[in-house]
Structure formats: C-alpha cells, structure tokens
C-alpha cells in the first residue's frame, strides 16, 4: 500500500517535471520561430483585436466595480482614523501595483485564453494543424507566435485601462457618493504614486500577458483527440493560467517591493 502510494507520487512528480519541460520548450520554440521571417502583421492585428479590443468591455466593467468597492471599503476604514484625504492614493496604489494587473489578466484568461485553447484544440482535432505542417508552414510561427505577441501587447494596455477606470470608480463612490474631498483624492494620488509603482505594474502585466498566451496555447496545441479532451484542456488552461498568474504575482511583488 505504502509502496504503491510512493510510486504514484513519484510518477506524478516525474510527469509534472516532464510537462514543465515540454511547456518551456514550447515557449522557447515559439520565440525562436517569432524571430524568423515572415513577420505576420495581419495575424498579429487579428489577435490584438481578439485578445485586446474584444476584452475591453469586460475589463472596463470589472475595473469600474473593483474601484467602486475599493472606494467604499477604504473610505469607511480610513474614516475611523480621520484619514479620508488619502483615499485616492490607497485606491490608486492598490490598482496600479496589484489589482489592475492581476484582475485584468484573470479576465483575459477567462474570456480570450479559454477561446484560444478551444480554437487551437479544434484545429488539432480536425487535423488543420497537420495540414499546416504538410504545407511546410510551421504552426508555431503561423498560429502561436501572433498570439504570443498579441498577449504581450494587449494585456499591458488592458491593465492601463483597468487602472484608470478603477481609479475613477473609486472617485465616483468615495468623492461623489460619500463626500470625500475631490482635490485631496487627486493630489494624494499625485504625491503617493511613484514611477516604481507604475513600472512594477507594467512588468507584471507583460509577464501575465505572456503567461496567458503561453499556457492557453500550449494546452490547446497538445489537446487529446476528443471532445472530452478538448473540454479538459480548456478547463486546465484557465485554471493553470490563473494559478500561475497568482503565484508569479507573489514572486514578482516580493522582488519588486
């Protein structure tokens, strides 16, 4: 019984290590193909539209309500100490350093990442990826690399939108509804937010963009050849992307602080 349990743990560990190795090789191969001509600007624009533009609405909606609930919670907490004047800086720093990158990346994972996995997975199951291979067109270069580029560009832009909308959401609740001072709200942001905070947010959002494209494309590319396998791949892509984003966020925060 004990031997069997140890063997199972060993097998799982070896599988996970091998899977991580395969994922790393997948990413490196994609970057290697990305560096080779032809560049595919139309494909990249198409993916930017899909990952970026089409995610804007859900990101704005999430950002607005996150900012509003943050304004509400923080206003009542600060009022206990008579510090409502720093409401703006607390909302802005929370948004720029933490909530903006993480929540925007999670929303992109849910909306665009899952769709990427499903699209690539269906192409694998219906042999469309094999068809590319037979035409001497590398699928990593044609299919995956544009999604990587689009993820790297779109997620930081969406995070910027998230930050701005979130800060305005905090303003609407804190200033317009609860009566905090508007001047204090903006001036506290101006005095508290430093370049280092913005830089940290940018670094996080770029790496999250890569994580979403990388994990979701990988799971779709190596999906099992069945409808059930595709469903599992899509679920795994969303769960794994989200977990990796949160874990990576902790490591980045501890380095960037």
């Amino acid at each position, binding site marked *: 019984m004990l031997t069997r349990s140890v063997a199972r743990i060993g097998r799982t560990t070896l599988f996970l290590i091998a899977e991580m190795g395969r994922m790393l090789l997948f990413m490196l191969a994609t970057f290697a193909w990305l560096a080779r001509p032809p560049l595919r600007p139309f494909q990249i624009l198409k993916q930017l539209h899909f990952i970026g533009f089409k995610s804007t609405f859900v990101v704005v909606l999430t950002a607005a309500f996150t900012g509003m609930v943050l304004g509400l919670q923080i206003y009542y907490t600060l009022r206990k100490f008579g510090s409502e004047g720093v409401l703006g800086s607390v909302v802005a720093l929370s948004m720029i350093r933490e909530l903006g990158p993480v929540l925007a990346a999670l929303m992109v994972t849910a909306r665009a990442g899952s769709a990427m996995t499903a699209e690539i997975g*269906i*192409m694998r199951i*219906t*042999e*469309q990826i*094999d*068809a590319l*291979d*037979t*035409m*001497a*067109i*590398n699928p990593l270069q*044609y299919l995956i690399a544009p999604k990587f580029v689009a993820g790297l560009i779109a997620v930081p832009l969406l995070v910027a939108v998230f930050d701005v909308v979130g800060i305005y959401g905090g303003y609407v609740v804190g200033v317009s509804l609860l009566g905090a001072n508007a001047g204090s709200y903006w001036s506290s942001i101006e005095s508290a937010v430093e370049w280092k905070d913005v830089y940290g947010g940018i670094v996080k959002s770029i790496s999250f963009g890569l994580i979403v494209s990388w994990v979701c494309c990988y799971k779709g590319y190596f999906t099992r050849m069945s409808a059930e396998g595709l469903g599992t791949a899509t679920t795994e892509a969303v769960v794994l992307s989200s977990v990796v984003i949160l874990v990576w966020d902790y490591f980045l925060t501890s380095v960037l602080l």
Partner: protein
Amino acid sequence: MIKLVGVEKTLGGQPVLCGVDLTIPAGKLTTIIGRSGGGKSVLLKHMIGLLQPDRGQVWVDGIEISRLRGKALNEVRKRFAMLFQGAALFDSLTVFENVAFPLREKLRLADAEVVRRVEGMLEQVGLSGMGHKFPAELSGGMKKRAGLARALVMEPEIILFDEPTTGLDPLMAKTIHDLIVATHRTFHFTAIMVSHEIPEIFSISDWVAMLKDGKIAAMAPSAEFQRTTDPAIREFIAIGA
C-alpha cells in the same frame, strides 16, 4: 519514389506498425487497404514526416526523412500535398482562401495570378462559384473536393489521400474517385491512397498494398492483387466487395 524500410511505431503503448517494408512507385496511384484502426493513416503520416518511426527509415527520392527536422523537412514537404479524412479545411477561411492559402504563403504570387489559379482549380473539382462559402456551409463531398483543390493547387509531385471517400454516399464516392483519377492523369503525380472502397479501388489503382498486423502482407499491380490466393486477403476482398 518513396521507400519505407522496417518502420515500427507504437502509439499509446500499442504497437501499430511492426516493421513495414514498402516501396511506392513514382507516378503511379497506389492504394493501401487494411482493417480499420490497422495503422494505414499512421503509415501515411510517416511518409510526410508528420510522425517519426520508433525504428526504421523513410526514404523520399534518396533522402531519409525520418530524422529530418525544421527547414530540411519543410524542403521535402514542399513536394507533397495531403488530402485528410475530414479535408482539414481552415474553418476561419472561405473555400477560395483555403485553396489560395498555400499559394499566398509559399509562392507569394500576385493577386491576379492567385485568383486565376484558384478559380481554375475550383472549376476543375466542380466547385465553381462556391469560393465565397465557408467550410461549415459545405457538404461532406464538397469539403473533400475543396481539400483536393487545395492539395492540387501547388502542383505537388506526391499526393497522399487519407480515406478520401469516407462518410460519402456511393455516388459522391465515385465522383471523388473519378476526380482523383482524372487529376492524376492530368498532373502525373505520385498518389498514395488509403481506402476501404473495395472493389472500386481496383479499377482506379495501379498498385494495391495490404497492411495486416502492422506489416505489408501483399503488394501487387491491381489486377494481379485481385487474383491472389492468400486466404486472408481473399477473405478481406470478398467481405469488402
């Protein structure tokens, strides 16, 4: 000429090919028959480097392709085209764009030339006026014809057909067979077809090979193959017919 020497492949712990020795004559239409799940499609995928053998060699005109990767493999693949079981059309592109895809990607031709070639090819496979449709709007037979047009448009030297008539009614299957034969006569490519359509394949193929238990059990010119005395092959042909 394509030559497989001692090709072995195990998939999911199951041995599929157990030492396949096969020589495909150039310029002829060779059909590979055998039981469903017997490894015929796997064999076909080895010929174009979509799968690599665990053991053995795959030769294409004197080049051993089973260990080739990247650019070297792509150079060999430029001589091939493949018609997949489900046609494998890109579902985000129209029929016209699907057929034009290899021309635009590989040859980078002017638009007018692409239009001329694609429309000519669509006419040849009986899909004139269908170029604007998406694969989801096509019937099974039309998808296969569009796949055939995409395979032919680059005028390859070798075309692999993976069960081109599966899922089609007998009339449409005959249409596809006639189309393959007609285009083979016109373009003189080497054709390798995996099929279950017995006895129809005997009338269209130059050579027939049978894959049995992961090996080539027999290969002969079509007429000779039908006269085989091997009881297992006779039984397969009789049931198929």
